[in-house]
């Protein structure tokens, strides 16, 4: 039925799925190229406008992709930033080894903010549930203050969680690192406003527009090496709150939590106390991508206890200065 519709594309054919546009054919970018280009643009903006940027680097896949983008953004010169890891003391040894290998390989400088040191000093207290994820905020914010970092790159993605869907690429934090959703600046076009008062800093999220699948596809395309725990391996695990947690001296298993050997892999890598493994036989990147494509659980829902605390859990932690 013809209404006053100006142009309806034919919608036939697969491939690029382009309609009658015509002019874009030779100058199209794949979605990965578009996301990569945007991420590199963000890194370069920060390099041009800030004095002391730092990249949060945990050895997890998102921070690995961030570092990869940074290396590309400034090649053949070295990355003009240092790295920072907030070490909960319960990290997977495979991931720490990967972290140190990567830092050495690229001649980077790594700062470590240690939760364990804060607990030993009595500044932070161990939680009854043994989870140290919420304890990362204080060491992180104090390290930012002590080192006078003015831009802090995080691997957060907007698709991860509802509160993150409203996050800016440049997210202003006050001197207490607090995030006030009502104080965030509108972000228009590709014009990022990084101006801030002394003592304030900006959290920057170059992967804002990436999804879990994009990250994996990019890792596959670029041939980026990952810590081996992202792939299927045999592991001694026990079940707590419906998640397969790794057995270790961080606080598990308790009595009545039988352990078993299972073939598992990790979809996200936080620390041992809050990151669950998923049953998997995927030993290659392709197998992982196929598995994710077919998966019916979001990344955090499947493997992160910290987001399930309450419907507003992430929002509250962000306000306090969490990543």
């Amino acid at each position, binding site marked *: 039925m013809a209404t006053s519709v100006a142009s309806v594309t034919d919608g036939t054919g697969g491939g690029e799925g382009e309609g009658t546009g015509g002019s874009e054919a030779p*100058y199209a970018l794949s979605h990965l190229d578009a996301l990569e280009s945007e991420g590199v643009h963000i890194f370069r903006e920060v390099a041009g406008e800030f004095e002391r940027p730092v990249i949060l680097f945990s050895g997890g896949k998102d921070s690995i992709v961030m570092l990869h983008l940074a290396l*590309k953004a400034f090649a053949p010169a070295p990355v003009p930033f240092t790295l920072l890891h907030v070490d909960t003391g319960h990290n997977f040894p495979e991931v720490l080894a990967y972290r140190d290998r990567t830092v050495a390989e690229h001649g980077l400088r790594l700062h470590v903010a240690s939760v364990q040191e804060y607990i030993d000093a009595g500044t932070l207290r161990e939680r009854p549930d043994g989870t140290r994820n919420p304890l990362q905020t204080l060491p992180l914010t104090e390290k930012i203050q002590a080192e006078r970092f003015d831009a802090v790159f995080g691997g957060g993605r907007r698709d991860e969680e509802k509160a993150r869907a409203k996050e800016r690429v440049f997210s202003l934090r006050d001197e207490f690192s607090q995030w006030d959703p009502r104080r965030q600046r509108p972000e*228009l076009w590709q014009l990022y406003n990084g101006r801030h008062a002394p003592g304030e800093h900006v959290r920057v999220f170059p992967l*804002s*527009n990436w999804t879990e699948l994009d990250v994996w596809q990019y890792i596959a395309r670029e041939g980026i090496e990952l810590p081996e725990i992202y792939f299927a391996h045999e592991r001694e695990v026990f079940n707590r709150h419906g998640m397969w947690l790794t057995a270790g001296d961080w606080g598990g298993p308790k009595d009545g939590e039988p352990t078993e050997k299972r073939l598992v892999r990790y979809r996200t890598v936080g620390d041992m106390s809050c990151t669950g493994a998923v049953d998997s036989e995927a030993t290659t990147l392709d197998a992982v991508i196929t598995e994710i494509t077919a998966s019916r659980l979001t990344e955090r829902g499947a493997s992160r206890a910290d987001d399930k605390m309450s419907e507003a859990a992430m929002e509250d932690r962000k306000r306090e200065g969490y990543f």
Partner: protein
Amino acid sequence: MTTTGHTATEQLSATTLLRFATAGSVDDGKSTLVGRLLHDSKSVLTDQLEAVERASLGRGQDTPDLALLTDGLRAEREQGITIDVAYRYFATPRRRFILADTPGHVQYTRNMVTGASTAELAVVLVDARNGVVEQTRRHAAVAALLRVPHVVLAVNKMDLVEYAEPVFASIAEEFTGYAATLGVPEVTAIPISALAGDNVVEPSANMDWYGGPTVLEHLETVAVSHDLAGCPARFPVQYVIRPQSAEHPDYRGYAGQIASGVLRVGEAVTVLPSGRTSTIEGIDALGTSVDIAWAPQSVTIRLSDDVDVSRGDLIAPSSGVPATTRDVEATVCHVADRPLTVGQRVLLKHTTRTVKAIVKDIPSRLTLDDLSQHPAPGQLVANDIGRVVIRTAEPLALDAYRDSRRTGSFLLIDPADGTTLTAGMAGESFAAEPPSAPAADAAADDQGWDF
């Protein structure tokens, strides 16, 4: 690099990316439409759906309220409104989507402007029972102002008007006519019921009189050529790369993202604002050397001559150099809670260049409902759209926004605390608008645009 040759990787890496925005109010069923798009395109995963079902039951609803998929912050959940732009992600085998989900209330004009600023397509939602209302005209005006290339009119709640074709046809006609007066190049009208699922993802059995695409089909097939590559080339320099290492003792590259057009090795270029000329010696596209690159690629450019280039400069082909000016006339949307006043000293951020500036005049404020002009308002407050005249301390290579959304846009920033005050679009407001009267400011060094 590793090429796996596996279908999962290969098939998906060939998709394109479409950024689009939605506009409409809570009452028009926008959250339901977005929820439906995510749900029916299988982008809502089990745990998210379970959370929605739990929350719906907790509110005494017996079916999952899809609108809850998109409610983010506690304040919104408590008030049942959306207070900010939220970004959503979904994919089909044909395309990856980034959705800027913007609230439709009058007081949130700035959010819609924000969402539309990066969108290649805007979905404007109307209630079939109410037709084109003031708010609809406001949404059309924002899409037109921001020069969003494609506009979709989604006539929702067709189930409540017996799926009657004449209802849809008259709304579509009225909206398309109005959009044409604003210079919107293209409108696609689609009759839908977000609640029942008609024509959102699946074709409607209730409206066999409609032969066009569903909303998702249209999103999957609309051309994502926003003609960036067809515009004159513009390369704002972000950062100068100088390794000064034993391996690269003399490397000097200018890093940036091509804002528009195409750059080629061997091309004669001019650096602005200095006006010095050189030739492109090489283009490094993130690890590979290429002969040609186009917007929006991030690249590093090497020039044949040792000219002085730094962050904030603009490299353009010598065959199509933009004029530089210190006098900016623009349509702006004021986005801050504190007002913008005549005589105010601000910072103006344009591409990678930030300069001091003064607001010389605010000739008019625009009411979006009927596009009426209010002369000399003296100031602009949050969510106001208006015309401003600005004088900058240094020359800018500014294009008209109609020619390039990337090099024709700018921000005004409060120098005191860095607050983003105003979003600006250089040149005239609407494509179909008669030229506005020139401001009484001193003549510029170059004529900026034809007014």
